C-alpha cells in the first residue's frame, strides 16, 4: 500500500490523523459506557470514597483549638512551655475573651473534651470555668489571671498551658502518635507510660491472629476445594451448597452459636466432661480469648478461602496429574511438584481475601473475643461510638489501611499479583 511508505502519523481517508479519527469514532461508545456506570460511580463516590477521605482527614485535623480560642492561641505563641511558670496576664485576658464567646456558642465543652484526650482533667476544667466566665465582663473584671486560678488552681499549672499550646496548630500528628502508644511530650514525641500502652499490642495481636486465621483457613479449605474440584458435578453442587450454607445464616447467629459451643458450660466442654477427658472443675476456657476468636473467625471466613481455591483448582486439568504419574512420579510428588504449584494462585487469592477481611473484623471478636481476643477494629469502634475520639479512630483506621496496602505490596513483590486468580 502507498501509506506504508509515508512517514509521520497514519492519516484517515479525509486527511485527519487516524488516531484522532479513531478516538472520535469511539467517543460516543465511551460516553455511553460511562453513563451506564455513572450511577454506581456517583453512589460510591458519595457514600464510600468521600466519607473515607473525610474520616482520614480527621486523623490530622485539629482546628478546634485555634477556632475556639483564637486570641489565646496567638497570645500563647510567646510563652515558653519549658519555663515552668504559668503564662502572663495577657494570655489569661485572651482566654477570658475567647471563653466568653465560646460559652455563648457552647463550644467550650467540646474543646474541653478534645483536650481531655491529651490531658485528663481538662474537660472538667473547661466546664467549670465556663459556668463562671459567663458572668464576667471583659472591660471591668480585669485582670483575669487571679480569677482563673481562683476558679481552679489547675489554670496555674504550666502543663495545662503546654497542652493548649501543643495542640494549637490546625493540623496535628497527635492522633497518630497516640495510635502507636506515643504522645507529644516536652521534647517532642515520647513513649506513653507503660500502663497506657495498648495500640501496638492490639495491632500486633490483630496481625498475628489474622495470620493464624488465614493459615488455618488454608489448611482446612485446601482439601475441601480439592474434593469440590474433583467430584462429579452433581455431588460437587451438593457439597458447594454445604459450603455456602453458613452464608444463609446471619453472622451474629453463627457467632452466637460458637458461644454456645465453646463456653465453659457449653456443648464441647459438656461432651469432654461426659467422656471423662476433662475434669468437671477443670473445664477448658475456649471462649472470650484468642482461641475462641480464631475458631469462630476461621469458621466464618472459610468459604472465602474455599471459593477462590475451588475456582482455580477447577481449571487444573486432571491430565497433569496423570502425566506426572506416567512420568514416574509418586502420588505425593505428582501433587507437590505438579498440582500444588498450579493451585498457588487460588491460595493467594483466598489468603488475601481472608486476611483483609480478618484484619478488619469486628463483630466476632466483639462477641467471643473477651479482652484477650479483641482486634484493633473493636478499639476503633469504641472510639467512634463510645469515647467519640474520632480523630484517634481515624488515625487507627488509617494505620490499618496502610498496613494492608503494605502487605498487598509485599505480596505483589514476593508472589506477584498476577498470580492471584479468582477463577
Amino acid at each position: 500500500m502507498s501509506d506504508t511508505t509515508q512517514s509521520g502519523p497514519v492519516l484517515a481517508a479525509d486527511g485527519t490523523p487516524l488516531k484522532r479519527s479513531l478516538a472520535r469514532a469511539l467517543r460516543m461508545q465511551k460516553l455511553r459506557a460511562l453513563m451506564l456506570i455513572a450511577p454506581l460511580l456517583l453512589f460510591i463516590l458519595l457514600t464510600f470514597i468521600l466519607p473515607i477521605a473525610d474520616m482520614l482527614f480527621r486523623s490530622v485535623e485539629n482546628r478546634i483549638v485555634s477556632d475556639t480560642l483564637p486570641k489565646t492561641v496567638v497570645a500563647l505563641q510567646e510563652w515558653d512551655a519549658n519555663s515552668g511558670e504559668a503564662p502572663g496576664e495577657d494570655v489569661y485576658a485572651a482566654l477570658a475573651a475567647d471563653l466568653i464567646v465560646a460559652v455563648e456558642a457552647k463550644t467550650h465543652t467540646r474543646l474541653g473534651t478534645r483536650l481531655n484526650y491529651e490531658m485528663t482533667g481538662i474537660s472538667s476544667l473547661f466546664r467549670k470555668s465556663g459556668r463562671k466566665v459567663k458572668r464576667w465582663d471583659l472591660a471591668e473584671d480585669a485582670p483575669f489571671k487571679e480569677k482563673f486560678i481562683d476558679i481552679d488552681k489547675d489554670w496555674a499549672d504550666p502543663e495545662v498551658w503546654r497542652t493548649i499550646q501543643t495542640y494549637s496548630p490546625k493540623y496535628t500528628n497527635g492522633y497518630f502518635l497516640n495510635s502507636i502508644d506515643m504522645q507529644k511530650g516536652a521534647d517532642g514525641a515520647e513513649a506513653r507510660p507503660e500502663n497506657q500502652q495498648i495500640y501496638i499490642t492490639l495491632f500486633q495481636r490483630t496481625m498475628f491472629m489474622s495470620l493464624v486465621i488465614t493459615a488455618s483457613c488454608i489448611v482446612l479449605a485446601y482439601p475441601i476445594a480439592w474434593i469440590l474440584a474433583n467430584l462429579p458435578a452433581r455431588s460437587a453442587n451438593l457439597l458447594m451448597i454445604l459450603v455456602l450454607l453458613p452464608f444463609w445464616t446471619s453472622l451474629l447467629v453463627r457467632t452466637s452459636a460458637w458461644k454456645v459451643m465453646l463456653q465453659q458450660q457449653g456443648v464441647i466442654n459438656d461432651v469432654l466432661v461426659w467422656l471423662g477427658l476433662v475434669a468437671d472443675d477443670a473445664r477448658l476456657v475456649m471462649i472470650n480469648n484468642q482461641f475462641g476468636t480464631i475458631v469462630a473467625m476461621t469458621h466464618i471466613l472459610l468459604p472465602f478461602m474455599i471459593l477462590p481455591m475451588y475456582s482455580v483448582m477447577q481449571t487444573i486439568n486432571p491430565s497433569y496429574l496423570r502425566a506426572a504419574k506416567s512420568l514416574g512420579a509418586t502420588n505425593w510428588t505428582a501433587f507437590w511438584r505438579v498440582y500444588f504449584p498450579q493451585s498457588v494462585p487460588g491460595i493467594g487469592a483466598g489468603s488475601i481475601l481472608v486476611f483483609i477481611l480478618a484484619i478488619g473484623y469486628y463483630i466476632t471478636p466483639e462477641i467471643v473475643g473477651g479482652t484477650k481476643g479483641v482486634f484493633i477494629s473493636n478499639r476503633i469502634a469504641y472510639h467512634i461510638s463510645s469515647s467519640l475520639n474520632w480523630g484517634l479512630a481515624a488515625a487507627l483506621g488509617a494505620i490499618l489501611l496502610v498496613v494492608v496496602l503494605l502487605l498487598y505490596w509485599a505480596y505483589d513483590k514476593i508472589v506477584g499479583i498476577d498470580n492471584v486468580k479468582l477463577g
Partner: protein
Amino acid sequence: MADASNSDAFVEFERVQKSYDGETLVVKDLNLVMPKGEFLTMLGPSGSGKTTCLMMLAGFETATHGDIRLGGVSINNIPPHKRGIGMVFQNYALFPHMTIAENLSFPLEVRKMGKSEREEKVKRALDMVEMGAFGGRRPSQLSGGQQQRVALARALVFEPELVLMDEPLGALDKQLREKMQFEITDLAHRLGITVVYVTHDQTEALTMSDRVAVFNDGRIQQLAPPDLLYEEPENSFVAQFIGENNTLEGTVKEIKDGLALVQLDDGELIDCKPVNVSQPGERTRVSIRPERVEYNKERLQEGAHTLKAEVLEFIYMGDIFRTRLRVAGNDEFIIKTRNAPDQVRLKPGQQIEIGWLPEDCRALDA
C-alpha cells in the same frame, strides 16, 4: 490372533473387561497380543472403549476382569508410576509452571538421576524433536505443533520401551498433523519402541500403524495391518468405518466355489465373495469400495457382473472424479475414478452400467 503364551508377546490383554457403573461393560472381553517394536493403533468411534483400554494399560483405570501383562508380567496391581510407560496426552499435559527443559527433566528427577546426566538426556531428547533451542521457554509460549513435539520428547526422555499416545494430533491443523504423523512413526521405528496409539481418525491409523485394532461397542472388530483392514474388512462395521464404502442389501441365494450369489432387494443378482455369510437365505450387506467400481465398459473385465445405474451427481475433485449414483434403490452409491486423460466425465441423468470383480465385492453380516 496369536495366543497368550506367545513368547514374542510384549503387551498382552487377556479376557479384559471394564465396567464403570457395574451395569454396562465399556470393554467386553478384550484379547490382544503385541510384539515388541510394533506400532499398533486403536481406532474406533468415541465411546468404543479404545481410550479406556489405553488408560487400563497406563494404570489410570483398573480392569474389572482379566489380565494385562507387560513383558510377561501382570501389571494389574502395579501403580502407574512404576509401570515405566511413556504417555502422550491429547492436550499434551505439559506442566504450565515449568519450562520445557524442566518438563523434560521431571521424569528424570523423580528417577533420582544426577544433574549432568539429566541435562544431557534432556538436550538429546529436545534435539531429537528439533526443539533444542526452546528449553528455556514455557509451554504457553509454544505453538500447538511445538508443544506436541515437546510432549513427545517428554514421553521418550526416560527411555520407556512402551509409549502410549492418546489422540496426540487431535488439536493440530491438517498440514501439521500429516507432518507429525510421519515424524512420530519415523521416531518410533528409529528408536525401536513399542507404541499404542489411540485415534478416531482412520487416515492417521492407516498411514501410521503396523497393525490397527478397530474398536466398536467394547470389542476389537478386526485387528489387521492397514491394507488388509481396508481391502478385506471382516464385517460390515469395519467396512463402513474404514474408508468410503458402498453398501447394498440383499439375501444370499447360494454359495458355491467360494462365490456367493446374492439377490439384492430390488431383485438383481450379483456375485460376491462370502466373508461372514455361510448359508443361503441369510440377509447380507454387500460392500464395494468406490474406487473398485468401473463404468467404462472397455475397462470392465471379462465376466464381471454389471448393474444398471443412474448418475445423480458428478463432483470434480481434481485428482479424482466422485460420482453419486442410484444403484439398486441406493441413492448414495459413490464411485471414484482417477482423472485420466481418457476418462469419461459423467453427467447427471445419464444411464450407465457399472461392474466390479467379485473379489472386491464382499458379502458381510447384515
